[in-house]
């Protein structure tokens, strides 16, 4: 199922459902996955995975010129009792299990980080309080590596907040044991100049579940690449995303769900609002159903609300199906302008223009937030959206 409507000038909403013998998701990358940055040529910008990204604004993360500074980024982990928090060296055997860097910046981060942070929730430990990770940029450049591991049947909520100013490239791994449940909220609330590129790899165990909520408000360039694979059947991944792209910001979310084992589910819903000159949002949703992944059930959706002229959206859902033995597979993408008729209707009921605009944008995001199913996170998010609207929709 594909749909597209009201596409503003200067935006693309292209989708495809390909039935392919061989994955084009994999082959259209300019180099195979590798931990070594030397295996990737310096991108020039026309590569499939870089064609939407303003390389000149990556501050050298892509071409080896960005060197880490001492006080680049401060990471603070606050964890409830029972959780192990460690700082480990590059040779720790627990690193690199969930996935392998797929582009030059992720490989650069893997090749350059000095210490990694490993947070472990032991098996059968059910946390009642979230693990909080604060990543605060202090104006420098940093390469980071974070592992979050849940043992079998463990349950945890992790909230990662990104604030301040930094040039940061990172890999984040989620290793989710059999029957475990991980909810992770990653908020990109950077200052205006920050550059943040990260690959998130989740390995979802047998009958395990991942709920990921990505919230991107700030930064000059934010380019996130959440990826999901399954370690056994019965796994479930719900990937929610919400972004608010202001004038001059580039916010790019590239997702891959690789249905590599049978009987797993995935549901992807990303929504974004854009306003101001040269606000640019990119959403790439790749879902791959491999030949062996019978019984897969997947759906992905991206919606964008363009509030003003001068903003641009590129939204590309891409579903590749190598087996017909599936429960369901669908995608949808739509980009629409802020509807002046809605504004008129609300104002004709006495509601001042500013409030009416906020009501419409809040409503747009509320539809997504209501699907998260975790009241305290929903409340927090609505609160953050309010703040963002207060600050930016006038």
């Amino acid at each position, binding site marked *: 199922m594909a749909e597209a409507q009201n596409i503003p000038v200067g935006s693309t909403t292209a989708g495809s459902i390909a039935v392919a013998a061989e994955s084009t998701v994999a082959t259209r990358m300019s180099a195979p996955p590798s931990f070594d940055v030397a295996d990737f040529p310096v991108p020039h910008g026309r590569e499939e995975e870089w064609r939407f990204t303003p390389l000149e604004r990556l501050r050298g993360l892509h071409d080896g010129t960005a060197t880490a500074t001492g006080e680049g980024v401060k990471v603070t982990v606050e964890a409830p009792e029972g959780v192990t928090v460690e700082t480990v060296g590059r040779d720790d055997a627990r690193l690199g299990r969930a996935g392998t860097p797929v582009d030059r910046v992720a490989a650069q981060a893997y090749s350059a980080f000095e210490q990694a942070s490993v947070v472990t929730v032991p098996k059968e430990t059910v946390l009642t309080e979230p693990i909080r990770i604060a990543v605060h940029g202090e104006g420098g450049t940093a390469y980071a590596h974070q592992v979050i591991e849940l043992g079998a049947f463990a349950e945890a909520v992790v909230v990662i907040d990104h604030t301040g100013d930094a040039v940061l490239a990172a890999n984040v791994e989620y290793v989710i044991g059999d029957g475990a449940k991980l909810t992770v909220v990653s908020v990109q609330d950077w200052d205006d100049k920050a550059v943040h590129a990260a690959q998130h790899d989740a390995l979802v165990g047998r009958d395990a579940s991942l709920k990921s909520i990505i919230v991107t408000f700030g930064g000059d360039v934010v380019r996130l690449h959440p990826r999901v694979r399954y370690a056994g059947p019965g796994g479930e991944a719900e990937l929610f995303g919400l972004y608010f792209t202001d004038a001059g910001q580039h916010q790019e979310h590239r997702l891959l769900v690789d249905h590599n084992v049978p009987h797993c589910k995935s549901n992807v819903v990303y929504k974004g609002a854009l306003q101001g000159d040269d606000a640019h949002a990119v959403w790439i949703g790749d879902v791959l159903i491999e030949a062996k992944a019978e019984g897969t059930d997947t759906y992905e959706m991206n919606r964008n609300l363009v509030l003003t002229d001068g903003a641009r959206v590129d939204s590309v859902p891409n579903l590749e199906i190598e087996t017909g033995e599936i429960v369901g597979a669908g995608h949808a993408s739509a980009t629409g302008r802020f509807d002046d008729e809605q504004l008129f209707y*609300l104002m004709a009921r006495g*509601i001042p223009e500013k409030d009416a605009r906020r009501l419409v944008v809040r*409503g747009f995001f509320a539809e997504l937030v209501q699907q998260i199913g975790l009241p305290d996170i929903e409340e927090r998010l609505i609160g953050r959206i309010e703040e963002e609207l207060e600050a930016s929709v006038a």
Partner: protein
Amino acid sequence: MATLEIRDLHVTVEADNATKEILKGVDLTVKQGETHAIMGPNGSGKSTLAYSLAGHPKYTITGGTVTLDGEDVLEMSVDERARAGLFLAMQYPVEVPGVSVSNFLRTSATAIRGEAPKLRTWVKEVKEAMERLNMDPAFAERNVNEGFSGGEKKRHEILQLELLKPKVAILDETDSGLDVDALRVVSEGVNRVRETGEVGTLLITHYTRILRYIKPDHVHVFANGRIVESGGAELADKLEAEGYEAYTKGGASA
């Protein structure tokens, strides 16, 4: 006593890179407590009149005046007009995704009344108003007009009319798309508001059917962008019998 005065109103729209005059000198006075029916053929400019009074940005006022109790309506923004006491029930109400009816109603009541209604009495007020209009309470939690049937949208408009208690209500084809039962329920809603004697009603319609339920004090025939004849309720009977032909042949060249 609130009075809406429309004098020699001229309105244009931009269509296909050309400016087209739609309203060509409308004169009308609506006083609180009165009901005026405006009847006319398709395309004669009835909705244009309604939208222009409400301040829709697509319509450009090129001449004339509109005042509410002497205040210049044309100077006001859309929301100011609503707060001044104008209400437009739309021919085609707009869907607002993600905004629940209850949130919408409360936000607009707060804006119109100048303060947030007390929660307890408000909930009761809405519930009772919905009951009177045969609306399922579940509507309160649905998104504004989203997936509403034509009849449900019109009931929702009249619900707002009842809650917002305007000085002048413009009802643009509130009767169209309603079956007989819905027409009766909606008309009863309008009549409840009229019976307060607090509202002046401008009932825009193409058909005489609704006038069996809502008795107008004045009937105006609208053709080719202006009022071409005015009379009492008997004028509606004449239109019922003879149609609009007599009015469209001569004057309407557009």
